[in-house]
Each structure stands twice: as structure tokens, then as C-alpha cells.
């Protein structure tokens, strides 16, 4: 299990992703509780599409950004992902919460690159953010229910 505080600290202070938007996701609730406005910025939004647009705009203005969402809502960003982020090459980090390994099968249907978060989360985050920044496409880190404490 990974401490939510350490996870956020690594993403914000080591990888420099400080702007996030999203719709609440039960699996990521510990992350919301540990967020602090002195080192990061979180915007609760009305839909996943708005979250993707907001984060993409922030990226274009020179800040690294990401969105937090539940795996079942990933369908809501696919249209914008295909028509905008992939064509315009605007990357954002997706932090996706999921309940069981069956849920994870959804991801195999899409072309979004992802890593499932484990104990060596720092290495996984580094790999995924390197890919994101080099290839300029959104990539996802998958966080299973109960993985954070």
C-alpha cells in the first residue's frame, strides 16, 4: 500500500505536475483528502470532457497538468482524446481509479498507454510521464481501490 501523501508529493514536487481537474472518484478519495493548495491546484469540474479541456489548456500555457477520473468515465473523454489530444498532440496525465481487475479490461479496448500502480509507483510514474512528455499523448496511471492509504 502506498501513502496518498507520498504519492501526491512525488507527482507534484518531483514530477512537477501541480494542476489537476476532475470528477470525484471513490477509489481516489484519499487523494482528494490529502490535497493541499500550497503545492497544487485542483479544480472540481462539471464533466470529464471539461476536465480534459481545462488540463489541456493549462498544458498549452506551459504547466504540466492531469485529470483524476474513474475508469467507467473514461468513455466520456474518448471523443476529445481522439479528435483533440491525439491530433493536436497535447498530453495530460490521467490518474484513473478502478475497483477490480475486471474493470481494467476496459483499458485494453483503448489506445491510451497506461501503467498499473504498484509498490514501485515512483518508477512507474516516471516511465509513464517520460512517455507522455516525449510522445505528447495522454497516458494513464491506474490506481486500484485500496492501493492508497
Amino acid at each position, binding site marked *: 500500500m502506498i501513502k496518498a501523501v507520498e504519492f501526491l508529493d512525488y507527482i507534484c514536487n518531483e514530477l512537477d505536475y501541480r494542476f489537476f481537474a476532475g470528477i470525484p472518484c471513490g477509489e481516489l478519495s484519499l487523494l482528494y483528502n490529502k490535497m493541499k493548495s500550497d503545492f497544487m491546484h485542483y479544480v472540481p469540474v462539471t464533466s470529464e470532457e471539461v476536465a480534459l*479541456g481545462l*488540463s489541456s489548456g493549462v498544458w498549452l500555457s506551459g504547466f504540466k497538468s492531469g485529470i483524476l477520473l474513474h475508469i467507467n468515465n473514461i468513455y466520456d473523454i474518448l471523443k476529445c482524446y481522439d*479528435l483533440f489530444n491525439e491530433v493536436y498532440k497535447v498530453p495530460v496525465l490521467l490518474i484513473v481509479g478502478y475497483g477490480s481487475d475486471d474493470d481494467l479490461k476496459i483499458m485494453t479496448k483503448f489506445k491510451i498507454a497506461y501503467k498499473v500502480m504498484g509498490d514501485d509507483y515512483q518508477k512507474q510514474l516516471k516511465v509513464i510521464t517520460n512517455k507522455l512528455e516525449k510522445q505528447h499523448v495522454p497516458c494513464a496511471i491506474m490506481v486500484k481501490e485500496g492501493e492508497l492509504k
Partner: protein
Amino acid sequence: MKRLACLKYILKSLRSSDVALFVGDYMCKEAYQYDKDGFFYLPSVSGIGPSLALGMALGTDQRVFVFVNDDEFLKNFSTAPQIAVSKCKNIFYVIFVSGFYQSHNSVVTIFNELKAPKGIMFNLGFSVFDYTHYFKNKFFVSEVPLLIEGIKGPLALFISVDLGVNKKLVDVPYSGVEMCDRIAGFIKDNKGTHSSEKTNI
């Protein structure tokens, strides 16, 4: 006045550091006639436009204008409260009202059936202006640059325009990647050109 003519006056009134984002195929073609470095076009991606503009406004102190037709405004309505509550002083939502879909000029939108669209925007938290009368005669239109210079966001700017688009206009020639590089470079180059370097993030 047609939308192309209104766009001409507004775009010429913008500061050299302003960012402008255009949503919709015909809107992009029309705006491309007055193309500048700070312009960003979304001809085929409509769902993301206003939220993308809000993201840019959050990350920079430059003024960000997003231009939509009333059909796109209705489509992206969930972004309006988001823009309003952001309290960003540098975002301006410009809505051209023709009452028809810009891609199908014979099909009406529900915009003109709404009881008080400006009231809705005001209640959400926008400052609301209607510049329609400024574009109705040549004397008042000369005041548009002064008005645009003094505005503060979050602002919803309504302009009623005559129906019809010029279908002979050329497509925007830039690829998505070219446009992103251009806008990212433009924002980076113009950061700190205003009185305060502080961004909203």
C-alpha cells in the same frame, strides 16, 4: 451586420498579446482571414473549446477570448458555470447569436427561445455585455476598440449577427501540432508582458 464583419472589428481591436480561440468550422475560416500568432483554431473539435480557453486563462495572465456561435454555446453550456466561478479576470466568452446552426443555415437553434440567456449568464457570475447595437452603424463601431480595451472578465459578450456565412473562404492550413506549437510559443513569449506576472495557478 454579418459575423465576418463583426469579427474583423473585434479582432483588430485585440492587443498583440491577446490569445483568441475559435470554435467551429466556419468561425475558424472567417477568423483565419485576420490570422495572427495568438490565434488558435478548433474547426472540428467543438466540445472542448471553452474549457480549453479557461485552461489557458488559468495558466497565463494574457487575455484569452473564446469565440463561439450560439449553437456551440448551447452545446458547451456546462463550461459556462465553470468559467464564471473561476473568477478569471482574463477570460472573455464571445457569443455570436444568429439563431441558426452555423453549419446548416436553415436549421434554427433554441437560443432565441430561451427566456433570458443574458440573465442566465449574469446569474452564473459573468459580467454581461451586448455589443449588437455598436455594430449597427459605422459611427458606433469605431468605439469597439475602446470598449474591448477596458473589459474585465469573466465576461460574456453577446453579439447578434445576420444569417449567412461566406462559403468561399479557405480552410485553416495549419495542422493541430503546428497550432499547438504556435500558441505555446506565443504564450511563453508573452508571459510577463502585463503589469502582474502572476498567473491564476
